């Protein structure tokens, strides 16, 4: 029965994936291709700075972390938060069939991450067996371990009368957070296991590609065990995952839009209103994008002050800044996708034009990137000889513009 359901779900997935070709819409293509092209171009152009040395032990661990982290952290939404999860459960689709499809989705994501990581090696002519084997080993181990660990965490959470682990109790007084503790810690073992696997590839006992095959077999085994855990957990954990996504209301004093304060005073009123709304929605719905800005800005400034003349430090600061701007762009596109639910309709009825929305969204995005661009730009201009810190402001403005355009395209008609 489960195999029939897997075939049915695979057919549905292929049909959905083919939608941009079957029913082409410029917005859908722009929202996907534009950020992808920019990301690939950034990896290609900054190849020398962002490429760990795969022949070195530390470099192998670095490459392993880069490959395993996105897989481990994306595993939760892929496994437990698809938009059609409730519908599939109500239709009686066996949990093992849902698991099979979601494991395949995560596998595709793993391969995409590995391909992206190989771009800097290809750009510098350093693409060879070793970096491919390291990244593949790390990605595959993270894939299997994440499926295993997250399914196990979900199972533990829905086990009645479970003993709360010490690691969960350490998380503070909020009982709901403590109860979700296993999920909070679950991505860490896959990240570490991925880095460890990449490092092991360098051990000469086996050829690199043989190591990869060994790790792939282990990953498939872990994923297989994860299927049973997922099937036991899903009927009770599925609804719980939905409730865990609840965003608490803003604290007293945070509610209410602030329109036209500070630099936003120069904006026309309608644009200012869009900016205030988009900034509020992004800060609540995509809190992670805003939270990353200040810590990265501070670390970058400290690094520049300490060793800003070093080309390697300049490379890492550039890479970190680009990563933050890319995260902001991802949040902007996510905001656009949210608007498919009806915000555009509301905007039209109150008379907001496409120009108002684009400018307002750009201003909100630029405001989010400004702490990073200003702090790093000023420090860069003072420390790095023969350079201009204005480039940081230009980069932030340009990335906000591209993200905003892609966001409006993602919002659809």
């Amino acid at each position, binding site marked *: 029965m489960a195999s*029939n*359901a897997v075939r*049915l779900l695979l057919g*549905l997935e292929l*049909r*959905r994936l083919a*939608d941009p070709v079957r*029913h082409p819409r410029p917005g859908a293509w722009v929202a996907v291709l534009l950020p992808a092209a920019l990301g690939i171009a950034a990896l290609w152009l900054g190849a020398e700075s962002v490429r760990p040395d795969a022949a070195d032990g530390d470099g192998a661990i670095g490459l392993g972390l880069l490959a395993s982290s996105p897989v481990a952290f994306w595993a939760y939404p892929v496994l437990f938060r698809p*938009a*059609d999860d*409730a*519908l*599939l*459960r*109500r*239709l*009686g*689709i*066996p*949990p093992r069939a849902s698991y099979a499809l979601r494991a395949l989705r995560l596998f595709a994501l793993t391969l995409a991450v590995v391909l992206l990581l190989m771009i800097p090696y290809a750009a510098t002519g350093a693409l060879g067996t070793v970096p491919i084997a390291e990244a593949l080993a790390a990605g595959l181990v993270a894939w299997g371990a994440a499926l295993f660990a997250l399914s196990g965490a979900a199972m533990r959470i*829905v086990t009645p009368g479970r003993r709360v682990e010490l690691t969960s109790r350490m998380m503070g007084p909020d009982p*709901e957070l403590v109860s979700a503790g296993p999920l909070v810690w679950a991505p860490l073992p896959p990240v570490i296991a991925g880095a460890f696997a990449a490092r092991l590839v360098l051990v000469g006992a086996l050829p690199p590609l043989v190591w990869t095959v060994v790790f792939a077999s282990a990953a498939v085994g872990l994923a297989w065990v994860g299927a049973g855990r997922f099937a036991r957990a899903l*009927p*009770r954990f*599925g*609804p*719980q995952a*939905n*409730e865990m996504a*609840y965003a*608490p209301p803003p604290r007293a004093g945070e509610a209410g839009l602030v329109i036209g304060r500070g630099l936003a005073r120069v904006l026309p009123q309608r644009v200012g209103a869009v900016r205030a709304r988009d900034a509020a929605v992004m800060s609540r719905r995509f809190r992670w994008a805003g939270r990353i800005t200040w810590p990265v800005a501070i670390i970058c400034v400290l690094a520049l002050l300490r060793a800003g003349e070093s080309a390697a430090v300049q490379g890492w600061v550039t890479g970190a800044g680009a990563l933050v701007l890319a995260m902001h762009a991802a949040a902007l596109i996510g905001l656009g996708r949210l608007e*498919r639910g009806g915000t555009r309709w509301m905007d039209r009825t109150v008379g907001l034009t496409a120009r108002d929305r684009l400018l307002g969204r750009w201003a909100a995005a630029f405001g989010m990137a400004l702490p990073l661009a200003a702090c790093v730009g000023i420090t860069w201009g003072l420390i790095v000889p023969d350079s201009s810190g204005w480039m940081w402001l230009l980069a932030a403005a340009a990335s906000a513009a591209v993200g905003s355009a892609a966001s409006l395209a993602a919002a*659809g008609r």
Partner: protein
Amino acid sequence: MMRDRSAPLAVDGLRKAYRKRDVLDGVTFALRPGEAVALLGSNGAGKSTLLGCITGDRLPDRGTVRLCGHDPFTDLAAAAQCMGFVPEQPFLYPELTVGEMLQFVAAARRMDAGEAGRESARLLDLLGLAGAESTLCRELSQGMGRKTAIIAALLHGPKAILLDEALNGLDRTSAERLTSELDARRAEGAAVLLSSHDLDFVGAWCSRGLMLQPGAQWRMLEGDEWEAWRRAPSLGLDPGALTRPR
């Protein structure tokens, strides 16, 4: 009574709280074959939460739910076969056409393709969607999307039909036709639990009403009490008449 497999739906001692705020407490009732029960209450009273706990979309803190005798949290496939649910905001795959969506639902429910095709065509025609099979779900109006979700819920002949504000947004003709269809299903033994703010309609059509009020208070109105409510429908009840949270 709670373990009676002939009852399309049986709920016993259901409790649900959100971050320490009780929404449902001790809710107990069963649907008999062929009856229609109204789910009443003001906004935020817990109607959608109750339906979510019944359909397995929300995890109750305590209590049991049985759909044709099956627990939706342990016997998902059998419980799913028993129920047809239209949520307040139904999910339709935006990339599929109406026809493809219904084909997928029928295949997921393991219906015979020919039978599913005939039933889909009949229901599409009944609700005025004939000819819309090739329209993409993302291009449907709200009412058309709701009709598609209703057809998807009724396609397999469920014994427990759960409708969360399902009549909202339907034109008068479609609403009347849907009511006739539901009457026919009831005559065949299906039971309907209907949440609606159209108090006159539910008063005329339903044989009992489950009243929910903020503060996790609830009461099943039946017999003389239901007759009295039908004469003067409202969403408020004498607080003394409501079940107190335990």
